[in-house]
């Protein structure tokens, strides 16, 4: 048994200074905000701009009270769009329509931004060893996480202020604007606090990001399920997305729901901070599992390595799209009923995906267009991992072996391209199976929508090819690819709603996807898109052969 030595110094560690586990939060938060001085305003302003851009479109789409009541009646008649967007509580006010149309989607987007921000400033820094560095200074154990939460709140604050000023300033009603802006910011804070908890559970930033995004996506799905019955099922109260809808901005605001958001986010944040103050630096609550002692027999080439590294990620994407496909598939039928009852909405839906007379096909095609963007995002991020490996130093490890540069690049290219197929296949099949089951035509509809989804593959491949071209030829411009993807998403999903000119969509590959089965099957665009993707990919691989690695 050891006994404390008698000649220990008994002086107070720092005479006169009060030190808590939160000491150092402000300097760390200031440093985080400084590093985010572009990112924070960019997300806040960008997402707020979407709200402000969508609002005036309702004056155009539904100019009269009569047309708005028709929309509300058709929504009440069937739960399809209501499930995804939430109930429409006040169709007569433009603010109410705006809140209904973008509320859930924006909460999803801002929630994801919050998750990534919190993890970036907490677990990612800890994993990189920066927390060790700052922690050796006059910094309390809880300060880094508290600073991360402050940094995330800054984005929410920028967003809320702009939305309140923007909508209120347009004369839509200050109370509604205030409720709408703050309820979304409040829900996003709940997700930020949930991410803070996730960052205590896992040891790696990647796992924390995955867990956090899964929570956001799961909460969105839960809200959709709750909203598919009318009035919404009680489980709507279990999800922050439901809280945003239930605040009812512009429709008799229920301010106490915002208080609920504040309480829940504070509670989650306290749990996370409590854990952060108790655990060891670098550790997580979830213990890492042991891995295999030897590699599987089939792993032993760049291609099998890429598959080994990317398969778990692909599985998550495929499962996510399958769940989304099944959810949407279960809503197609009621969606068809609703659209059929409203000519103006039918016109709008057709302008998104099709000029077809079969509204079910048009509806399915809008969803498939979304799956194609998801698939492209997977392909792009997979090809970009080549560049990540290169900058972090793993590329030189592989390239010092028998693996040629082309094999190394092609391995990720093949995984990306086949992942695109897998994601679209899963989404189309899930949607077709579930819709087929409700429409009593299981074999016919599942084949129909699986094929329809596969038609979108070449367009997503073009982004994969483009990624390869950039990685191979212009590796310093890889960040541009994210802009390209964001452009495709904004223009493709919101273009018709925002009334953007057609040429803005014509410069994306997704414009050229044949609207099969709503229209006749056109093989030429598919051949051209595939050839373009192939050309870009070959160009990228050729560039890879020629340049320095790392560049």
């Amino acid at each position, binding site marked *: 048994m050891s006994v404390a030595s008698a000649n220990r110094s008994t002086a107070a560690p720092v005479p006169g200074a009060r030190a808590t586990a939160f000491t150092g939060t402000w300097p760390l938060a200031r440093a985080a905000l400084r590093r985010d001085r572009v990112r924070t305003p960019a997300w806040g302003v960008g997402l707020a701009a979407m709200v402000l851009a969508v609002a005036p479109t309702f004056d155009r789409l539904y100019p009269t009270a009569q047309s708005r009541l028709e929309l509300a009646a058709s929504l009440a008649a069937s739960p399809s769009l209501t499930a995804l967007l939430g109930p429409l509580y006040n169709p007569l006010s433009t603010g109410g329509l705006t809140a209904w149309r973008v509320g859930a989607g924006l909460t999803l987007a801002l929630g994801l931004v919050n998750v990534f921000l919190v993890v970036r400033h907490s677990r990612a820094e800890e994993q990189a060893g920066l927390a060790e560095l700052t922690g050796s200074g006059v910094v309390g154990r809880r300060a880094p996480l508290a600073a991360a939460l402050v940094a995330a709140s800054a984005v929410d604050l920028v967003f809320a202020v702009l939305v309140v000023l923007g909508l209120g300033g347009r004369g839509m009603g200050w109370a509604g604007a205030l409720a709408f802006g703050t309820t979304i910011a409040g829900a996003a804070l709940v997700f930020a606090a949930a991410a803070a908890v996730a960052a205590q559970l896992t040891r790696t930033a990647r796992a924390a990001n995955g867990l956090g995004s899964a929570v956001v996506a799961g909460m969105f799905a839960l809200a959709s399920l709750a909203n598919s019955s009318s009035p919404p099922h009680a489980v709507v109260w279990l999800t922050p997305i439901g809280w945003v809808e239930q605040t009812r901005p512009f429709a008799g605001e229920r301010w106490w729901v915002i208080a609920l958001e504040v309480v829940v986010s504070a509670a989650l944040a306290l749990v996370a901070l409590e854990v952060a103050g108790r655990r060891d630096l670098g550790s997580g609550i979830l213990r890492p599992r042991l891995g295999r002692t030897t590699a599987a027999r089939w792993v032993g080439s760049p291609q099998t390595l890429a598959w080994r590294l990317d398969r*778990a990620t692909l599985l998550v994407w495929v499962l996510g799209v399958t769940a989304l496909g099944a959810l949407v598939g279960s809503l197609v039928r009621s969606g068809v009923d609703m659209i059929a009852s409203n000519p103006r909405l039918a016109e709008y839906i057709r302008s998104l995906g099709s000029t077809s007379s079969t509204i079910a096909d048009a509806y399915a095609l809008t969803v498939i267009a979304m799956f194609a963007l998801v698939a492209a995002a997977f392909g792009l991020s997979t090809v970009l991992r080549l560049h990540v490996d290169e900058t972090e130093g*793993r590329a*030189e490890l592989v390239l*010092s072996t028998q693996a040629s540069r082309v094999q190394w690049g092609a391995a990720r290219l093949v995984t990306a391209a086949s992942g695109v197929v897998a994601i679209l296949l899963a989404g189309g099949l899930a949607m077709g199976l579930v819709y087929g089951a409700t429409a009593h035509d299981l074999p016919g509809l599942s084949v129909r929508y699986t094929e329809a989804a596969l038609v979108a593959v070449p367009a997503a491949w073009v982004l994969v090819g483009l990624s390869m071209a950039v990685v191979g030829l212009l590796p310093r411009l890889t960040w541009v690819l994210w802009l390209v993807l964001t452009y495709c998403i904004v223009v493709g999903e919101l273009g018709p709603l925002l009334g953007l000119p057609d040429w803005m969509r014509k410069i994306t590959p997704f414009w050229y996807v044949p609207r099969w089965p709503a229209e006749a099957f056109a093989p030429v665009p598919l051949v051209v898109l595939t050839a373009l993707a192939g050309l870009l990919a070959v160009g990228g691989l050729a560039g890879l052969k020629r340049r320095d690695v790392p560049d």
Partner: protein
Amino acid sequence: MPDVGPELVVDAVGLVKSFGTVRALDGLDLQVRAGEVHGFLGPNGAGKTTTLRTLLGLLRLDAGSAWLLGGDPWRDAVALHRRLAYVPGEVVLWPSLSGGETIDLLARIRGGYRPNRRAELLERFDLDPSTKVSTYSKGNRQKVLLVAALACDVELYLFDEPTDGLDPLMAEVFRECVDELTAAGRTVLLSSHLLAEVDATCQRVTIIRAGRTVETGLLTDLRHLGRTTVRATTERTADLGGIEGVHDLAVTASAAGAEVACGVDAAAMPAVLSQLSAAGVRTLESRPPTLEEMFLRYYDQSDPAAAQS
């Protein structure tokens, strides 16, 4: 300057490589003979890693010619990589894989993997292969790469600061492994800034600075070229001040005679010795230069400002 003697596994002449305005390699020469352990020394940022990357065909030379295992490192990269194993200086692995998986993977896409040697190396380096890479310490990640390289039977091993992060015990294990490689006739190029390590393992060294080779040769020859420290007590004061090649002369006269200490270039040694015996030498102590001393001197020499002082 053709070297007609032993076979050259690495023959690099006048390597030049620039990154933007920074000239990382500025006419660097490097010759590694078959079967030797060659030390590649230089301070941080001297161009060691850049040189290794050009030898692997990862970077394309701006000028100069590099020849590796009888091939062109850029053109024949893949074919040459079958015959070599490389351990990079910066150890970044795939965090989701276990150590054992990483070793198998890397070794399989190299040439000459000997799985039975893997087990033995894991034991010697005291490494648990089932642990995920993300939970390894820096030293353990380094061991993963060393095992992945040493488990392959190839002609040439390239190590970039291989013991960085290893504890002294493990660094010793690594040294033993290198000795075994030489015994088996393999060639090793070992880049390092740890002089003791090079001193213990290498026969020949190349010292570079700011992208240029400042010295190359057998360690013993380099020692010979270096300054020997001489200390002596003599009956009368020896007149060493006038001899070319005597440096840092310090003389202390005492009742019993005189004490001298100085650094002596190899060429000046006969003159110094005759002066000392003429002065009636009582004790004589001479110490060959340590690698540290040579190292520091080379850097001073090639820095014009420092050479003046």
